[in-house]
């Protein structure tokens, strides 16, 4: 075990498109999935991550290294997360949230979910549909009925700007 020898251990992760990545064990165990594998002694060779592609895994590893380099200071960690996610588009965010879910990394999962929620907040139904390409499969009557059921959420002004 790494902790016994005192030298930093490196793990090799393999994405589903066969890309290999080296990452310090101390950073990689932010993922509970990987941590469990290490604890079970399955981390000797290459760790295959069947649900994550190379591009996303590279991004997740950048995050793992970045966040584990910050000492226990929740404010600094939060600002790192904000900065890390600031330039990501929705497609990337969706890949990341799926990877975070698979890797069982609650801090990344929460940060990405909150970021997607932030995009939806205070926006009209029409805006959210357009933004995420959600197809409205309700008939006009059905839609009116659902709206009527939750009519309190449709009172007041809607913000529809694209900012």
């Amino acid at each position, binding site marked *: 075990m790494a902790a016994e020898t005192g030298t930093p251990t490196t793990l090799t992760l393999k994405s589903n498109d066969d890309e290999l990545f080296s990452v310090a064990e101390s950073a990689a165990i932010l993922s509970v999935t990987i941590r469990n594998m290490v604890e079970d002694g399955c981390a000797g060779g290459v760790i295959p991550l069947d649900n994550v592609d190379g591009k996303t895994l590279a991004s997740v590893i950048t995050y793992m290294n970045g966040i584990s380099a910050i000492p226990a200071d929740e404010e600094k960690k939060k600002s790192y997360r904000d900065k890390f996610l600031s330039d990501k588009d929705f497609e990337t965010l969706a890949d990341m949230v799926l990877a975070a*879910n698979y890797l069982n990394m609650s801090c990344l999962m929460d940060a990405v979910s909150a970021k997607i929620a932030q995009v939806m907040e205070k926006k009209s139904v029409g805006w959210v549909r357009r933004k995420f390409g959600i197809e409205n499969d309700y008939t006009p009557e059905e839609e009116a009925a659902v709206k009527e059921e*939750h009519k309190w959420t449709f009172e007041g002004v809607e913000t529809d700007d694209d900012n």
Partner: protein
Amino acid sequence: MDRISKLPEEILQRILYFLSQKQAVRTSVLSKSWRNIWCTRPNLDFSDDTFKGNKQYFLSVVNNTLQRYRDQRLCVKKFHLRISLGDNTYKESVSFLEKWVPRFTAMGVGAFRLSILSKNECVDMSSVVFKAESLKLLRLFNCDLGQNTPKNIPFVRLTVLRLIKVLINKDIFNKIVWSCPLLTTMLIEQCRGLENVTLEKTRHKYLKHFTFRTIDDRCSVEIDILTLETIDILGCKVRFHSHEFTNLKSLSLHSVEISTDSVEQSRALCIDAPNIKYFRYVGNLIPSISFTPTSNKWKSSSNVRFYIKDVQDAQSCFLKLSKQLQSLSRFGISLEIAQYFDHNIVHNEEDLNLIRVASLPSFLNCLFCICRPKIITRYWLMHGELMMRETEQKELIQYFCILRERGNQDLEDLRIEIFNNSRREWKRLRGPILLESALLDISHIRIRLKWRESCESSSNLLEL
């Protein structure tokens, strides 16, 4: 199907977790697959101040939602409810609260934040509040906590307690706060019946932020907790049992009467606060507060304000002020000195008037003997006679012009700046003469002084 709708439900749930109640419910209209995702959201958040619709509708939405969660045995990890009581719906609201709150324990509510604000009459909320077992935050405004408290107060998880204009006596208050071992924040503002609050380190191990504001000067606060980060006290007697505040970042004392246990300096308060970042003092007496030399991380944001009500004994006043400034001299100080026009004027900041015309130049002469301010700002208040203000303005400008021309051996540079009200900007006044018309539009004058390095600077910023 689009990307977001295809995400697994546990991820969509997580996204919805971060939305407001309103936005989360609205997602049901997006498409059929979104219809019921919000329905099992583990957090509920209802606030009537952002609710569009009348109170009855609000009550029925909350009631129906809670009923559904209860019927379907859904888990509520977090619940926030903010409700104001007023007009003709308060009885209805109270009876709903009496029905809802006891159910939360059975529903497994983890963190419950409750705010009850009464608009008109002081409403007895003891029937509701003492049933709220999972309470994490409690905020009450204009409520009565009654005379009959239960034997066991169930607030074991309470971390934030805010009581504003609450009718509560000392025994009930103590009974409550002694039952909250995890309390981190306590705010007590204008609570009737509560004349004394004692903070003991054995009872409040985690308390970090303490605010006590009152307009009743019979009130008193006793502090014996070393771990506090924020202390904000207004309008009462305060007694410090200890002087070492290792974590103290912000100390604000406004119109307080300070006493300590210290034997050798019976009237002085010496505080050891190595991490202090902000200190604000407002009072009509010059206090004897000092910070021990370890308190040296003080940032320039510190703000010291003195209201000097009575300057009949100017000599002793300046002596005291000088002593106080010296004890704080390592730090950037913003000093505000005010004198009431008339002692009967209400203690309201907008009604303050500043040093009277006749005393100003001599006052400044005395002031320069005790400190080296870098900026002096003089505020005029918009009420009062215009003529007076003009005379004052001219006199002040004249004083500084003379000072600039004659110079002072320690003074390197002096700039006079005036604030133009209509243009909302500071403008440097170069010549000695100010146009009569320009005077009409001035509310503040600011003087920047640059002192020679050799002279001791005891005060960076001085506001008059």
